[in-house]
């Protein structure tokens, strides 16, 4: 059965079983590999995308259940036009292996959309579902604070 999804502003017609997790639709059916597979059980956060602006684990959302517009890391910003968070990640040189960072950044984008000036404790609470095996947490905190400052200044 074909389903149509709006992903990063474009419509995609997908002919795959309804119970296929969104993660694999993105990665394997559409070739959008920025969203990562880490655990498949919603415990590492590497596959985080936005559905109607809200951070969701795409490995836990079936194709048939997608209820809104999907945004992936590719839709957040590009190397030539980075989102404020991606630019902050670059300035703070956050990534090591980098594999979890798509999910970290998508989760952080959700946080800042709800809380433009989070404390470290609020950052920790929002980000604790995203596992980084390389241990980049200090720089993730710094980059979120940095991006929050930049984004608030842009608004003013």
């Amino acid at each position, binding site marked *: 059965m074909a389903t149509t999804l709006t992903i990063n502003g474009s419509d995609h017609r997908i002919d795959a079983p309804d119970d296929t997790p969104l993660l694999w639709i993105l990665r394997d059916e559409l070739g959008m590999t920025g969203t990562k597979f880490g655990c498949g059980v919603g415990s590492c956060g590497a596959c985080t995308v936005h559905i109607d602006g809200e951070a969701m684990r795409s490995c836990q959302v079936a194709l048939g259940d997608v209820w809104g517009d999907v945004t992936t890391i590719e839709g957040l910003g590009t190397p030539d036009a980075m989102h404020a968070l991606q630019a902050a990640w670059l300035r703070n040189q956050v990534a090591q292996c980098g594999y979890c960072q798509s999910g970290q950044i998508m989760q952080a984008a959700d946080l800042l959309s709800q809380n433009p000036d989070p404390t470290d404790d609020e950052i920790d609470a929002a980000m604790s579902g995203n*596992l980084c*095996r390389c241990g980049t947490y200090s720089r993730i905190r710094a980059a979120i604070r940095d991006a929050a400052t930049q984004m608030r200044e842009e608004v003013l």
Partner: protein
Amino acid sequence: MSRLGTITRRSFLVASAAIAGGVAFGIYKLRQPIPNPLDPGEGSALNAFLVIDQDGVTAISGRADMGQGAQSTLAMLLAEELDVDWESVRVAHGPASVAYYNAAMMESALPGAEYNKSSWMRTVGAFVGNAGGRFLGTQITGGSTSVRDGFDKMRLAGASARETLKLAAAERLGVAADRLRTEAGAVVAPDGTRLPYAELAEAAARIEPPQTEPRPRADWRLLGKDQPRRDMAAKVTGTQAYGIDTRLPGMKFASLRMNPRLGGGLRGFDPAPALAIPGVEQVLDIDGGIAVVARNSWAAMQGAQAVDCDWGPAPYPDTTEAIFARIEAAFDDSPNSTMRDDGPEAQDGTEITAEYRLPYLAHAPLEPMNATALFEDGRLTLWSPNQAPLVQQRTAARGAGIEPEQVTVHTTAMGGGFGRRGESDYSELAARVARQMPGVPVQVIWSREEDMTHDFYRPGVIARLRGVVADGTAKQLDARIAGQGMTAQVAPRLFDIPVGGPDRALVEGLFDQPYAIPSYRVRGYTAEMDFPVSFWRSVGASHNGFIHESFIDELAHAAGRDPMEFRLDLVRPESAVAAGVLEAVRAMSDWDNARASGRALGVAMVWSFGTPVAQVIEVEDQDGAIRIARAWIACDPGIALDPLNLRAQMEGGLIFGLSAALHGQITVSDGMVEQWNFPDTDGLRISGAPRIEVQVLETNPHLGGVGEPGTPPAAPALANAIFALTGTRARELPLDRQFDFVL
């Protein structure tokens, strides 16, 4: 597609340039030049570490980057000599070739403590490292050796290429080479004429490269200063292609199910339940397990779960208790090694004994095991996120039933490794799948559960220690450790060579620590078992750091001394470098000022992979649970070549060590690993991660590694802090079985 693959396929202005011979290795130069493996098609490869084409300079790394930033540092070493803008440098992984052998890795495998190697031992070591590295083709990323191995090679490659480009420019302009200078990717003549390297590369490739000494440190522009990593922009925009992101036209996805009783074999299977799943196309027998080929990874994984398999029994004791009983029994045999045996038995003093037990551990890099393969016309092309390309080439050839020369290995970016990707099972299994579907590219992707239950684990160990203290100091330390020998398993598996004799990996981090204890003996006892084990970030030091530094702490308390003072008294006479990192964390943590009630500090120092690292951890009691509040790290790798990345590695090493200390364990029941996914053996999360400060010292006369040395002190520093806070000594890991934490 790797950058190198792109280079070979695209057209550039320089047509079919001659390829110069092997790079000048300076003091490492051996008699027979190794042919340059780079064939850039229409660009120029002045040596094995550099390609110049229309797009500019690409530094070729013989080493993988699992997140340690080594590729950026290696490129920086080259760029420093070559005079190119850092922002313009590209980095690519080289092909599988003996040209990229790792001399430092072979050298560091020799017996002897790193901290007190004499100059003749280092000379012999370098010779053995080069000869052995070439002979075995050790193109391996591991042992924190990438930059130590590349420090001279990459600078000499850059310097040699720069001088060759100047010679080419001299010929073109009719100006003496010594009147030319280089700047920002161009040769500049006295009259200001600029000749970009790209325009000179073809002519330069025909000139015998002169050998030139690298520049003195005082002239460095890039090295020693914080530089952005070249892979960072791709990694924050989702555009970095890891192995798992390989996409080829017509590609299928396959997932595996191997015997959960590791190595137990497959007696039979019924594919019908898998074939009933939409998207599943075929079920393949891959010797020891099955692979399900499907239109996407999800269908493949569902299919692999659905196959009804009849597994053979485990070829090892089938419970954790029975495995540890086998380890314990090794103490009854004669020791496999006695790598330290100093001084006679202490005569007087207080005797302290203790037994430590550490669990098996999984590597669990966040990108699960995978490899992509295409078998066509008797040749195999492999896209593999790996730490040892030549090993993949050999084992994938075996999997495809062809010769290694018929295998082309593309080493992709990788989402972590931690030692797991030094193995090659994932490549060999992908080859077994691909050979059964010629002409069709197939990505063989493991579920997290398959990855965690089919690892080559950090060995579990039991250590028995006896110490004697008197007059406020340690008079004796006698350590015996039993566990599976890693080298004896890994060497035949990866290099087809049996390795007997003393197993250094079992005792490193224990026999080689810079403490002036007059009676000091370390013996290793190897337990023979077919449970799969391998190197895990910081290898032997990962368990021995905990054992040694926890027991030193026990001795300090038994002697009635402050643990920092006690250590410094023993370390100062043995190594000023090691004492330096202890003094640094003492100052950083304000160690000498007592903490308020409910807070406590713990210290540990471990010398591993050429670098001493000291850590102090502060814990606090929060309503009966322990919070890891802060951490201070001091290290001394000799030269901080890439300081920003170096500090990141120290932080990451600490977090990796804390993750294992808190949660890490692999247990076995009914022959099967009981931990399946992160909820069963988690990593530290951001909410439990301490605030960290790092200081890098530069007094070590020898360049040390940075990828691993941050890990070993983490667990003992935490356990020692917990002892200071609670009075309870942790002699087993993980700690979450014994204490409550705020995480």
